[in-house]
């Protein structure tokens, strides 16, 4: 796609800027550990456990997620990163056998409380998936879908434009808004999915390995976008790309697979959660160090 050409210098500049900003963000008080010193928390997980048909997928997750931050969940395959992420907007509810235990507070409210409607939860906590999943509709209709179902039909054109600008896609698609979204490149489709998500004006955006199906150039664009988006939204991202976590996130949680004594059952466990820089340069846990240095994984 001609529109998908990159400006490597610009992308690099933004990323360097981001690294700088991340360095500033690592203030001394943050080094004491990530469970303290949040300016404002979005999620508080207290002993979260997710089970599928009675078998644990992740266990004992206790951590907080900060507002206007990018929080990365990293770890080897099968450690329950995605499962944990899907807890946060109750997407696990769609799997009949899934069950969530423990306490999950969202701005202090119990997300799994008896009067909480999962549909309302997902309006506030949006999600971007691993594989771009645009709807088989026009680019415009893709972005307008969320506002339409929420009954926000006034100023729809402006909402769509704002969302597409927010996802850094406007300039590439403004002349073909009526074209089918399937005609976009993979990277553009993923940014369209991000635009679709922010058109609903959520509070949090969850991203489940959003770049794993994309080429490095598209990945760079989405990473730049995340750094831009965290000014307005809180972002939780699952990634198996450690460099990506290091580049974009403010804090990183490292999960690992744990086996029971008979090595029969396996589940994910939170090993270490801290400011990203500390996780990657000076982790407290030996296992984290082995993982981020590439010794295991």
């Amino acid at each position, binding site marked *: 796609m001609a529109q998908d050409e990159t400006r490597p210098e610009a992308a690099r500049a933004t990323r360097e800027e981001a690294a700088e900003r991340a360095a500033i963000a690592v203030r001394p008080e943050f080094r004491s550990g990530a469970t303290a010193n949040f300016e404002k928390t979005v999620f508080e997980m207290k002993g979260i456990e997710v089970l599928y048909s009675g078998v644990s997928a992740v266990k004992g997750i206790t951590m907080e997620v900060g507002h206007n931050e990018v929080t990365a969940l990293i770890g080897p395959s099968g450690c329950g990163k995605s499962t944990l992420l899907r807890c946060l*907007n109750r*997407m696990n509810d*769609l799997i*009949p056998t899934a069950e969530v235990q423990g306490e999950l507070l969202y701005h202090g409210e119990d997300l799994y409380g008896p009067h909480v409607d999962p*549909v*309302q939860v*997902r*309006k*506030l906590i*949006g*999600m971007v*998936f691993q*594989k771009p*999943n*645009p*709807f*088989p509709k026009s680019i415009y209709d893709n972005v307008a*879908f*969320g506002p339409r*179902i*929420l009954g926000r039909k006034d100023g729809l054109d402006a909402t769509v434009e704002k969302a597409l600008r927010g996802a850094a896609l406007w300039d590439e698609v403004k002349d073909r808004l009526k074209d089918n979204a399937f005609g976009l490149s993979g990277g553009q489709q993923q940014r369209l*999915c991000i635009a*679709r*998500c922010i058109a*609903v004006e959520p509070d949090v955006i969850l991203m489940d390995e959003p770049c794993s199906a994309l080429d490095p150039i598209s990945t760079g664009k989405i990473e730049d976008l995340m750094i831009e988006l965290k000014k307005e939204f809180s972002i939780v991202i699952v990634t198996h790309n450690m460099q990506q976590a290091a580049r974009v996130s403010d804090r990183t949680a490292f999960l690992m697979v744990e086996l029971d004594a008979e090595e029969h059952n396996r589940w994910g466990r939170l090993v270490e959660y801290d400011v990203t820089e500390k996780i990657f340069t000076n982790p407290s846990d030996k296992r984290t160090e082995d993982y981020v240095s590439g010794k295991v994984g």
Partner: protein
Amino acid sequence: MTAGGTSAPRNRLAVAGARSTTEAMLRAQPRGDVIRNTIFAGLLLLSVAIALAGLLALLIQAFAKGSSALSLDLITNPPSTAFPEKAGYRPAIIGSLELIAGVLLFIVPVGIGAAIYLEEYADGSRWWNRLIEVNIQNLAAVPSIIYGILGLAFIVRGPLNLGFIVAAGSLTLALLVLPMVIIASREALRAVPDSIRQGSLALGATQWQTIRTQVLPASIPGIATGVILAVSRAIGETAPLLLVGATVFVTFDPTPFGTDGYSAMPVQIFNYALRPQEEFQALAAAGIIVMLVVLLAMNSFAIWLRNRYEQRW
């Protein structure tokens, strides 16, 4: 080459040997293999020919016999025993159209509704949902005469007690083709990837909004194809109609709820074909041509629809 004078001829020898081996490997396969291949391909072609021969024979026979009776009178005139040269299919055609309209009114909402329930709402791990599934597959294989008896017992008489009217015929035919619609609609719904449903739900859409605005629109081509094929089956059905009232020799235009009797295309063809006179035989053949043209057109439209609008994911 360090080995000197002796190595060059030896190398040449080795190259020649390798080449002859390659040539032997590339040479044509044994004669027996060629013959077996040809015979097998011939048998497969024969299978296709037998399948097509039936249709071809029917077409040739129908055209040979019926072309003399093909005229506008065939469509515009009512049947007549006294003047076969002027007799036509008008009441039968109108009856068939009314039957089909009734079938459509019933199968579109009920068939799609059942498919949505089974595909989107039913929990497949429950035994009763699996039982329903298996039974719908079975229903599609039940002989149509059984549906005729069902229609006679429950729709014409019995609980519904509609009498011998077009609407009763419609309901009977609708029940007959409903499993086809449900199965085709379920397949169309299942072809919509889960990522679309999740994408919609993740934006805060309810399950019903997701189905109405994403899943259904994406599966309409497949559903429409299924509905058209079901309707073309219903048009051609004769046996159940014979039981629910369409046996009468009708010379007037039937109404959907009229109790004076009605007819349908296949029934009228059957009626003409039973008569020994040459003129009525020609009329029956001409009726077959009309029906075949209608059915082929409908099936072609269904195929076109599927190829044209099918969503590729």
